[in-house]
């Protein structure tokens, strides 16, 4: 009897468990747990790395008290006093600002042209552009390195110029993809209206199309700027003497040798630069696209 009662109890429990499992509106605890753990896993290490830039000792893995030693205090090893790290910071901003502006200009023009130009050569050009988007960076980096040291060795020397050329070649596809996506949603009507009102094609593009494209152009600038700050594969192969190495390359070199928390400070500067550009870009984007229904973070992120 008691045995039967026990079986009935477990059966009831099993049905209850089953119905809980079958309930489509139950809270998805498991997925929620995975997501929370994933987000912690993906972001906490970076936060710890930022905190360790304020470490008092030489270690980047054991906390030895708070100090600004690696940022400013140390007269030689700190980020803002070490000549090589200071030079690297300048180089990073030099490379990123020029490369992202040129890549966005070239990419935007290419996107507008390729969107309206139909034909075999256009398809070939578009295919090449997309190929440059998916090719593993080491292939492009090594290819450019061999180009500048062999075929063009008397024209281009490794260093800032070569880095600009290579970075732009690698980044140009981002603005193309972002601007084209926007062009698809705009359609040709605005330009046609402008031309019906007497504008020349060029005036129509300048006065009707470009303002409409501005959010996309801005987003591509933010994306390419952030990406060029972080880039190090292409830039490393194309850097000449040590003074053309940007922060990313210095961090890579130091991480393989014996890094001090000054490296954490350098990485933090890169992080702040990137986030600043993204946040400013987003704020302007939101201002412009207010009322058009796509002013939320999601649409900016998916650009």
């Amino acid at each position, binding site marked *: 009897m008691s045995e039967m009662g026990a079986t009935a109890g477990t059966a009831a429990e099993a049905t209850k468990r089953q119905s809980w499992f079958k309930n489509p509106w139950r809270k998805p605890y498991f997925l929620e747990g995975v997501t929370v753990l994933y987000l912690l896993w*993906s972001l906490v*290490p*970076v936060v710890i790395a930022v905190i360790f830039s304020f470490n008092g000792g030489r270690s980047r*893995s054991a906390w030895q008290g708070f100090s600004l030693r690696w940022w400013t205090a140390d007269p030689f090893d700190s980020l803002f006093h070490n000549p090589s790290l200071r030079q690297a910071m300048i180089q990073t901003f030099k490379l990123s600002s020029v490369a992202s502006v040129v890549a966005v200009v070239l990419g935007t023009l290419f996107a507008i*042209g390729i969107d309206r130009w139909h034909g075999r050569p256009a398809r070939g050009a578009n*295919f090449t552009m997309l190929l440059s988007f998916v090719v593993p960076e080491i*292939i492009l980096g090594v290819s450019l390195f061999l*180009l500048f040291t062999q075929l063009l060795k008397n024209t281009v020397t490794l260093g800032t110029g070569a880095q600009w050329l290579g970075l732009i070649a690698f980044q140009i596809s981002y603005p193309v993809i972002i601007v084209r996506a926007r062009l698809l949603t705009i359609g040709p009507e605005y330009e046609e209206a402008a031309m019906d009102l007497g504008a020349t094609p060029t005036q129509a593009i300048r006065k009707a199309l470009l303002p409409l494209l501005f959010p996309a152009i801005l987003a591509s600038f933010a994306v390419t700027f952030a990406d060029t700050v*972080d880039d190090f594969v292409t830039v490393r192969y194309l850097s000449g003497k040590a003074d053309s190495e940007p922060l990313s390359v210095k961090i890579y070199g130091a991480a393989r040798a014996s890094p001090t928390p000054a490296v954490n400070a350098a990485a933090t500067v890169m992080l702040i630069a990137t986030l600043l550009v993204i946040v400013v870009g987003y704020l302007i984007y939101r201002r412009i696209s207010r009322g058009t229904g796509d002013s939320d973070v999601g649409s900016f*992120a998916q650009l």
Partner: protein
Amino acid sequence: MAATSTSDPPAPTRRQKKKAKASANEASGAWYPRWYWPSFTVPGIVWLALLFLLPFFTVLSVAFGTVDPIFRQPLPVYQPWWWSFATFNETLSKFYAGDAIYQGPLIRTFAYVFAASFICLVVGYAVAYYAARYAGKYRVLVLILLISPFWISYLMRIYAWQSLLQPDGYVNDILTGLHIVGEPVNWLAGKHITVILGLVYGYIPFMILPLFGSLDRINQSMLEAGRDLGGSPFETFRRVTLPLSRPAILAGLVIVSLPMFGDYYTNNLLGTTQTSMFGNLIDNAVTQAGRGPEAGSLVIILMIIVIVPMLYYLHETKRAAAAR
């Protein structure tokens, strides 16, 4: 200029006009000079020709060229009819003949990429599914957090783990503190698991975003229909959600595995020569004197390995764009 548009054939209906405009746009001849749109693309095309196609031609010329015997400098051959495949064949044979010194890295590359992509898919799918369907009022926050790794330098993220995995780092502190391991483990001494998890950590955001985009677009009513027709939650997932997200799964797998095939930095920061991959072979060959043709050959071999997934990805994105 305005004259051309006003002197168009007389008063067609609106629909005809629209049609005519569409075809005019297609041919891009009626409103614009023929050279008009192509001229926009010229700077980009020149740039790509000089700095994307020409470099690849240089790789071929270096790989199929020779090396100066005294100065150990590569002597590229720019005339395809004089190309010599000696170095290329020699490089290729290092993957299978004799000591097969490159076989280890090649096998590891495939094993790591396979394992890491799989983990990316499983974890990424769960996270993307939650973000797309259940995040509710936290949706924007979750989305920002999911995207934020894109704005953090890859190097910094791997460097952060390199610090945590030091013998005196926090990972060992936690593991010994919980008595999971007795002695601190040297995670950076060439452990497969460290490199694989490093690759997952580095590239999983690229998996989550396409999955999120796809799962987010699935119409809720499709799932309800699946349930109404008597499918269990699992059945509905298997027969509705999964097939609908298959393109995104494949795109995600390609987009995470392509950079992994060329990755050498994750390995150099988290592993040793015991865990070296294909990218390390290229990087070592490029940075050493006299190995230019070998570096070129390795780049060509890598290109052959990744060309199929690359073309597949381009084909799929084109199809998706056409379907939209």
